[in-house]
């Protein structure tokens, strides 16, 4: 049975062939589970879903260059594959989408992928775009005060780059050379708003120069390139040399969320061209060119992933919803007073 890959290679190493195949497995599993979640939405079981389809290579490769035993991850709603790469089980993921009692992130209080992870320091307090960037700077600041060499990785989209919080966080991180990686997944759309209406320049990474640290653009469908770029940024941060802004160009293969219909605002050509940028197809071809994967092995990986997702769906579908009374817990930890 396929398991998720919560045992990254030494992040300072190059990716081995075996490891590349493992990452591929994670991507495939993430993809199947992601598809399943959309299906569950269409069945009326999941209220909403955002998808990482098209972003998988970026996310899996980025996580691979970090150290989950100490690093911090501030995600937003689209880091489905990153969460898988960090060892979240399919059951755990599904509990979030189906609002089940044992949802590990928030106990079904929040949207899927919101809350805090039970095992790694991954969290996502809100749906509000870009609030996580100043928070990430604060997390990183605390590490410098504690003398920890942990790195903080904060994810955001091209749309988020327009928020004031993004600027404020990068500026501050630049002043104090904080150990933080600003990781932008640029899929050229913020819901329907295309990048040309979002910003007057070609690249988010170009902004880094205005803050005094490197900005790197990378092809987000290229696992090796994303891993390299992140590895360099992690080393820089751990060495005390400060932040890096990484911009991975990816495609959002699906509409913004299950509530969206991207044919309203994307042309047929724009939608069609994305097929060539599917990171799973690209990595599969690469592995086969390098003789790391046979067609049979690939088919097996797909079959195993599908099975794994089926098992998880059946399990979680049968699980209970939270009871009403837990709703009152954890507002503030206070004795006295009618909080």
């Amino acid at each position, binding site marked *: 049975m396929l398991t998720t890959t919560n045992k990254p290679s030494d992040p300072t190493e190059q990716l081995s062939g075996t490891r590349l195949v493992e990452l591929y497995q994670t991507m495939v599993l993430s993809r199947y589970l992601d598809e399943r979640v959309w299906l569950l939405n269409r069945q009326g079981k999941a*209220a*909403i879903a955002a998808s990482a389809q098209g972003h998988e290579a970026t996310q899996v490769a980025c996580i691979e260059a970090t150290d989950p035993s100490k690093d911090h991850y501030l995600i937003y709603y689209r880091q489905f594959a990153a969460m898988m790469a960090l060892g979240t089980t399919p059951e755990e993921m599904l509990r979030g989408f189906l*609002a089940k009692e044992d949802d590990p992130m*928030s106990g*079904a*209080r*929040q*949207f899927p992928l*919101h809350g805090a992870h039970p095992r790694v320091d991954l969290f996502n307090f*809100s*749906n*509000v*775009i*870009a609030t996580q960037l100043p928070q990430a700077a604060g997390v990183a600041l605390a590490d410098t005060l504690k003398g920890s060499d942990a790195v903080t990785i904060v994810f955001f989209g091209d*749309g*988020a780059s*327009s*928020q*004031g*919080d993004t600027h404020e966080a990068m500026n501050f991180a630049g002043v104090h050379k904080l150990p933080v990686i600003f990781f932008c997944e640029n899929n050229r759309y*913020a*819901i*329907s*708003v295309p990048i040309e*209406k*979002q*910003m007057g320049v070609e690249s988010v990474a170009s902004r880094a120069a205005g803050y005094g640290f490197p900005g790197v653009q990378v092809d987000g469908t290229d696992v090796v390139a994303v891993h390299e770029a992140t590895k360099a940024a992690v080393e820089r941060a751990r060495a005390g040399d400060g932040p890096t802004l990484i911009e991975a160009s990816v495609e959002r293969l699906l509409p913004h969320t299950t*509530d*969206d219909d991207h044919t*309203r*605002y994307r042309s047929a050509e724009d939608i069609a061209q994305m097929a060539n940028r599917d990171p799973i197809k690209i990595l599969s071809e690469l592995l086969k060119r390098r003789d790391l994967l046979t067609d049979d092995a690939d088919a097996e990986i797909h079959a195993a992933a599908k099975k794994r997702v089926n098992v998880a769906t059946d399990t979680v579908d049968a699980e209970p*919803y*939270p*009871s*009403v009374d*837990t*709703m*009152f817990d954890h*507002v503030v930890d206070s004795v006295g007073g*009618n*909080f």
Partner: protein
Amino acid sequence: MSEQTVIEAVRATLQSEMRRDDTVIVLGEDVGSRGGVFLATDGLIDEFGENRVIDMPLAESLICGVALGAAVNGMRPVAEIQFADFVWPAINQLVGEASKVRYGTNGVKTAPMTVRIPYGGGVRGGLYHSQSIEVLFSHTPGLSVVAPATPYDAKGLLATAIRTDDPVIVLEHKRTYRLVKGDVPDEDYTIPIGKAEIKRPGTDMTIVTYGLMLHYSLQAAEMAAANGIDVEVLDLRTLRPLDADAIAESASRTGKALIVQEDTPAVSISSEVAAIIGERCFFDLDGPITRLGPPELPPMPFSPIQEAAFMPSPEKILAAITKLSEI
């Protein structure tokens, strides 16, 4: 006259106001070819073009700051905040700036801007797509705040907001968008800011409410009628300025007041309504001034079971009516 949903009334009003006045522009996230996430601006870009229907970068402070700047330079911008929960970055431009433009310039500049904000819960929105954000706006001198609950009021109050020479916040309960239908006259009309409306006359007690809770209250009032309790339902419609006269008149007349709101009660609209009644109706009341709202929790859990437990419902309102009627 035609039957419309709330969202249809909003869209039709935006369209007619844009036809009526060239200086009316619409700006916000996804208001262009997407037509807004609730489709409030659907089709407007086709009729009025990119100049007057502006897809903004993802930045609410910018949206409201740009609206303010354009407003003081001859436009009548209608900004859309995609969800109320995302208005916080814009508070500085709205509460800090727009509210004080006329006052702070001693009347030299005015900001004829409208900000439409879909708010409220009951839509499986969880903590960040369910918030009620009326308190701060309703507290702030220099702002007007309307909260229409019916298609008729949505049209009349949005038209008034757009034609008003000062900033107006229009709170649209997102659960009403498709749920609530009603007759809307084809002809042009406006509804004055600051006027509540009795949506159901009654003699035994007054429910003061607004937004989605109007509809739940009307349902509860019907159920109560079956039990022989005749409940008056007053729809505030405007949250700033509150129609203190209408509130006091109704509460004094029926002698009992129940205030129903979806927002958490502490320091809220229901507090102010209670304070108005406590100050002005003291000698006419036959029972304590009662409030019904959700528990003091961050609004509101994603879990459907907990969401339902959080929200006031017709049944909970009926229970409060019954209890108050027994005093």
